[in-house]
Every structure is written in C-alpha cells, then in structure tokens.
C-alpha cells in the first residue's frame, strides 16, 4: 500500500510489507469473509417489554439494526387483539438506507422470537412469529396453558 513519500491515496495498491502494507492474500480473505457474514447477518435485533394492564403498552428497550443502532431506527409496535401477547412491528418504509444514501428493499424472510422469564416458577414464554408486510408479528404465549403472556421478548429478523 505504500505509494511513496508521505501519502497513501485511494485507490489502494495491494502489496508492501505486513507492517505498513496490505498483501493481496489478506485483502482477499477480508473480502471473502465480509461477504460470508453479510449473507447471514441479522437485519435487525430488538428487545421489547409489554405491560399487563390496558392499554398493554409496548416499549422497545433496545434496537440494533443494519439501518442503525438506537430506538430511532426501530420498527413501530402495534398492539393487536386489544390485549397483551400479540404485537406487530412494522417499519414505515420497506427500504433501508446506508450512510451513503444507497437504498434497498428489506424483504423479511425469517425471524426468531424468544421470551425472557421473570421468575423460576414461571412457565416458559414461547415466542411465535408471523411474517407480515413491512415487518413481523410476534406472539408471546405461555407454552403450557396456551394463553397469551406479557413481559419481555427478544426478536431477530433476516
């Protein structure tokens, strides 16, 4: 990468020493592995809490997405069925934009949802998912009773 003298402008020239250069073999490994992880990296992951009482408010407590980290980038929750345990999360746009303004649609094709347990004696909270337009619907269910359950869930989508 050493171009000579006191500057190393783009485009980078591969080669040079391991101390102040970037050999082609290392650049190739970087490219191959970056593509590999890009294929399977989640589109977004978030955790939310839903309260027991009417209006069963849903609060997203943490959001990390390929569109950005922080609640400003999170999908909007909608309480379904007038109770807890059934929440839809949708983005207003089906497009994510990178730092350079390049946009691309984000069709969600897979999702995981896992419940957090509030106490040892509480039965497992099972998360079930349904892929919907511009987002995902999450059902939090008491696995044994089959009834809806409130509380905390973590969701990941691809």
């Amino acid at each position, binding site marked *: 990468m050493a171009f000579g003298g006191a500057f190393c402008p783009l485009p980078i020239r591969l080669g040079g020493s391991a101390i102040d250069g*970037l050999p082609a073999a290392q650049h190739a490994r970087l490219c191959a592995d970056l593509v590999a992880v890009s294929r399977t990296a989640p589109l977004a992951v978030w955790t939310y809490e839903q309260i027991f009482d009417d209006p069963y408010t849903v609060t997203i407590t943490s959001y990390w997405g390929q569109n950005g980290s922080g609640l400003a980038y999170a999908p909007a929750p909608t309480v379904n069925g007038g109770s807890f345990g059934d929440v839809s999360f949708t983005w207003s746009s089906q497009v994510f934009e990178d730092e350079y303004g390049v946009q691309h649609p984000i069709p969600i094709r897979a999702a995981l949802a896992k419940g957090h347990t509030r106490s040892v004696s509480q039965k497992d909270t099972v998360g079930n998912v349904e892929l919907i337009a511009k987002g995902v619907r999450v059902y939090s269910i008491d696995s044994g009773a089959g009834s809806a359950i409130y509380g905390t869930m973590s969701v990941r989508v691809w």
Partner: protein
Amino acid sequence: MAITPEGLPAWTRTASHTQYGGRLDKQNYQNTGCINAQTDVGAEHLCRMASDLAAVVRTAPFAVLRVLCDDTTPGAPIIESAYLMTGVRVTSYVGDSAPTGFPSAERNGDGDVTFTFDSSYDDEYGVSGGFAIGHVEVTAHNTAASPAYVATPEADGQTVRIRVVRGDDGSAVADARFTLVVY
C-alpha cells in the same frame, strides 16, 4: 495467477485480525498518517476494520433457513429461503432435491424434519473450511395467539432435527413453518 486468501473461511471460526491485514504494530508508511480523509486510508482504519470483521465472523450464523413442513402430501420439507455464508437462495426448493451447496432435508413425521449439512464448504477462492454444527436456534411460525407452537432442535455433527409440537398437549404440528438458525 489466482490468489489464495490467507487463513480459513469464516465458518471455521478461526478468524484473526491478522489475516485481514491487522497487526498490533501496524503503522503508516514512514509513520506519516492520513493527509486527506477523502482520499487516504490509514493503518488505524484498516486495523479497526480487521478487528471488527474478526469479531463478527466469530458470531455470525452459518445458515438461516425458513422451512415449511409438507405433511399433507406427505413429503420432504420445503426450504422457502436459505441464507448461507456460502450463498443465498430466495426461491424455494424441496429438501430431497437440494441444490449443490444447500442443506438437504427429510421428513420424519408431522412437524418433524432432519437437515443435513456438508462436512466442508469452499469459499469464493476455492479454499475449503470444515463445518460442524455448533449452535442452533429455532422459532415456530404461527398465525394465531394460541396455542403456542414449540420448536426444539437436536443437533449432531452435520445434522439437526427439528420437532414442532403444540405447547398445551404436546401433539405434533402438521405442516409447521419455522425459522432455523445454525451456527
């Protein structure tokens, strides 16, 4: 002359920042840093990129599959979408007719299927990396708030078995759909 990348592919989980050009004593040529941020890339930038890439390579999933069991026919499950470190397929395929490089799948019973992955995969440069399932996560899909569909994995080497049952009575869920993540 074709280049051979340094190190092994991402799914071997052996990534080190050094194979991406990082070094603890990395330095800019003649110790002169970036002069123009619009055109220069410094050693410090490269090392951050190398370190962060090694970090995400360690935890990235190997495969993310959305699967629909076919218990009505009955037949092998349908892999509706498949994101693998080695390639992506967004058109469905039947598990017993898996395209090259994608996992096969067979039906054991209602809501009960087994996936088989290869013991090694090649990266874009033909470098082979061994693969064995390390971790598995699965979530059942549903269209109602009740009953709960519980999906559980059983992994061993190159295979993972998924069973989807109703949480309330343990009965199998026919034609179950689920998301499977394999590490």
